[in-house]
């Protein structure tokens, strides 16, 4: 494991000259906070060298104000008072860096989300003043920090061998990154290999999977560990260590051929991992491409499990395949003619609390599964075109053929005389046994919104449930890698727009349906996007990390070891023997790349010898002092009421 290095020694001791910059935010702040008054007040705060305002501090001219003051040597610490730091802290840090300052000699005061949008009048102006004063209190004691540099292995582990994993692996390997692809089953292909023709463009799923898998297997930069799973995980960005072990029982049934042979419904068979037993992978980045699980209807849901004639859409697709030999007549499944069939949408998707029943674990799938409408319509078209004697009914809530070519598919289905019926979320269709003598084993009744709310009865031979996507079974990885999970139980990205394929854990990326339902094209886009982030991260050969880690003042440290005991990430801090003033002593020492920066050690040190860089206890105390101080504004003494409950 490589040791992270500080690029430059901190340069402290210079007299603090704080520049305070207050943003109007185009009225967002200035409509409620008297910005000019606050600026006047800030000019009186000790340590403040300049105080300025701007309509949009984040704009180029706003940033230029700061940069110019830094360049002129008027200031050496910066406080910007504007919106939430999540939005623009990094903007201002990089402006400081561009002006030659240290980006960590910066403190942000949040006077929009936490002042102007929640308080009004004098109280808002006063609170803004105190918050900014507190920020200057902290800023005065900020020391320059340098990001930690960690050498990064030019290697990636991709977990999951579906199209997302294969796409990401190929992209990475083509960029000269060595890739280990870990797949639980003996097959490459994942969810796509369970399909036949992909909507709306009609590609052959087997062909797509085979094309990708062959390139994966032939690529000298990619090693496939099929039938294997990640069992241990450690390290940090640039230097992760993963233990990979064979999954017991994950081997292909006899008769299936490899390598490169395509097994319908399963994918391309891959030889077992060359190493056989458990191995350790050392890698720079990890791409998660663990895919999704198909929703299994509850027993009795639309008659599922109670009637053999009720099946799921994935099952139907498997059963009918390419509809070979079915041309011209009535669809036949398992020897049974299907003269009439109903496809019910949104099974296991778009569930609504109070209407739908939670599963045994109390979960509801409130999300839309995105692909089922198009998939159902695609299947209906295939059947109507091959078997015109088979009537197809689609019972839906909203038709979500959103993508390119999908609306056309829906129009085609109408032209193919697929009959669409629309039901309300609270008026689910009812599947029952057909009346004796009706000639059909089942009947579906639905209150059809398209037929003016009339109740319609459809005799059918088959009911198909368009089941949605659920999060895949990745509880073990979530636990091991400490992955964030959203309310929908899919893996949760840092921000859907700013960082859509990234996680708060640096060096781990999301690709495909482990994040949310997606179709094949969207999955490959997500995988390539994950790959580009990984490649960018690895392109320099090192990774820069936040410098907010614990640092021991060895002069104060007495080697009690309390910090070591309190540390939450074993190995991040340890007692060591070192020479101080020529004497060997026991002192605590931090491994910065492993330090989480949580501060558990700070609180327990009896000598106050440890602090988190950029978040020191003394800085918090300075902030509290400024908040309670009457120096910038006097309290009116009136008693606030309770509001906004």
């Amino acid at each position, binding site marked *: 494991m490589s040791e992270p290095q500080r690029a430059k020694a901190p340069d402290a001791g210079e007299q603090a000259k704080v520049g305070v910059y207050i943003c109007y935010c185009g009225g967002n702040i200035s409509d409620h906070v008297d910005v000019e008054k606050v600026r006047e007040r800030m000019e009186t705060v000790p340590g403040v060298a300049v105080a300025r305002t701007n309509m949009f501090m984040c704009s180029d001219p706003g940033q230029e104000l700061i940069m110019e003051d830094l360049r002129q040597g008027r200031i050496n610490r910066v406080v910007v008072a504007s919106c939430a730091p999540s939005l623009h802290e990094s903007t201002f840090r990089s402006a400081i860096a561009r002006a030659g300052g240290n980006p960590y000699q910066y403190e942000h005061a949040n006077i929009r989300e936490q002042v102007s949008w929640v308080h009004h009048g004098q109280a808002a102006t006063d609170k803004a003043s105190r918050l900014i004063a507190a920020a200057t209190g902290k800023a005065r004691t900020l020391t320059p920090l340098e990001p930690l540099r960690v050498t990064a292995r030019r290697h990636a582990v991709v977990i999951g061998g579906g199209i997302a994993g294969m796409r990401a692996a190929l992209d990475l390997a083509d960029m000269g990154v060595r890739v280990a692809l870990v797949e639980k089953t003996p097959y490459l292909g994942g969810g796509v290999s369970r399909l036949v023709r992909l909507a709306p463009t009609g590609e052959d799923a087997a062909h797509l999977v085979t094309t990708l898998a062959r390139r994966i297997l032939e690529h000298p930069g990619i090693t496939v560990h099929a039938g294997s799973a990640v069992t241990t995980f450690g390290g940090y960005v640039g230097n992760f260590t993963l233990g990979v072990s064979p999954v017991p029982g994950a081997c292909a049934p006899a008769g299936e051929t490899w390598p490169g042979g395509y097994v319908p419904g399963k994918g391309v068979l891959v030889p077992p991992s060359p190493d056989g037993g458990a191995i350790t992978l050392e890698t720079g980045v990890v791409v998660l491409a663990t895919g999704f699980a198909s929703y299994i209807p509850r027993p009795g849901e639309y008659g599922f499990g109670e009637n053999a004639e009720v099946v799921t859409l994935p099952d139907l697709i498997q059963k009918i395949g390419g509809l070979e030999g079915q041309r011209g007549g009535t669809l036949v499944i398992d020897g049974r003619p299907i003269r*009439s069939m109903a496809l019910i949408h949104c099974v296991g998707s778009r569930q609504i609390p109070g209407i739908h029943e939670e599963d045994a674990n109390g979960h509801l799938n409130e999300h839309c599964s995105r692909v089922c409408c198009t998939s159902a319509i695609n299947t209906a078209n295939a059947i109507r075109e091959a078997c015109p004697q088979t*009537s197809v*009914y689609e019972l839906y809530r909203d*038709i979500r053929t959103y993508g390119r070519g999908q609306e056309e598919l*829906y*129009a085609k289905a*109408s*032209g*193919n*005389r697929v*009959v*669409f*019926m*629309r039901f309300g979320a609270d008026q689910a269709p009812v599947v029952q046994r057909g009346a004796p003598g009706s000639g059909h084993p089942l009947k579906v*009744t639905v209150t*059809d919104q*398209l*037929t*003016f709310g*009339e*109740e*319609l*009865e*459809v*005799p059918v031979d088959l009911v198909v449930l368009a089941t949605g996507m659920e999060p895949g079974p990745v509880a073990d990885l979530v636990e091991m890698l400490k992955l964030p999970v959203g309310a929908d139980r899919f893996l949760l990205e840092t921000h859907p727009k700013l960082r859509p394929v990234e996680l708060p854990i640096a060096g781990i990326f999301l690709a495909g349906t482990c994040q949310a339902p997606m179709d094949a094209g969207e999955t490959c886009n997500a995988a390539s996007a994950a790959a580009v982030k990984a490649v960018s991260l690895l392109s320099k050969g090192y990774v820069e990390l936040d410098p907010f880690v614990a640092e021991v003042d060895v002069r104060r440290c007495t080697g009690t070891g309390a910090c070591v005991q309190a540390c939450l990430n074993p190995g991040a801090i340890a007692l060591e023997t070192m020479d101080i003033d020529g004497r060997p002593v026991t002192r605590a020492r931090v491994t910065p790349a492993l330090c989480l920066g949580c501060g558990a050690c700070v609180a327990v040190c009896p000598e106050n010898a440890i602090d988190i860089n950029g978040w020191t206890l003394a800085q918090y105390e300075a902030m509290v002092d400024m908040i309670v101080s009457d120096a910038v504004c006097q309290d009116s003494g009136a008693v606030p009421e309770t509001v906004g409950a």
Partner: protein
Amino acid sequence: MTGVNPEFVKRLEPLSADLGSACFNCGTCAAICPLISEHFPRKMIRYVQIGAQDRIMENARELWRCLHCGLCTQTCPRGANPGEVILTLKRYVTSVWRKS
């Protein structure tokens, strides 16, 4: 309970090529129709789509209120030609009357 008969549309096929299958029941025709008559003409198109023959005959006289002005066809987002479907149904109903 309204009966559904997917075979019904076959009886209309000899009368016209436009049988409203393209219709996705958006309701533009009903709202644009100068008659302003409940769900007309979508009502009739919908009954053709699901094959509700009884409902068509029950409401047959309504068909002749249609002005054949073509505004529904002009504004139909799916090119389903509602005007032509109504004309087709007039032909169908006329033939049923003549047979009876």
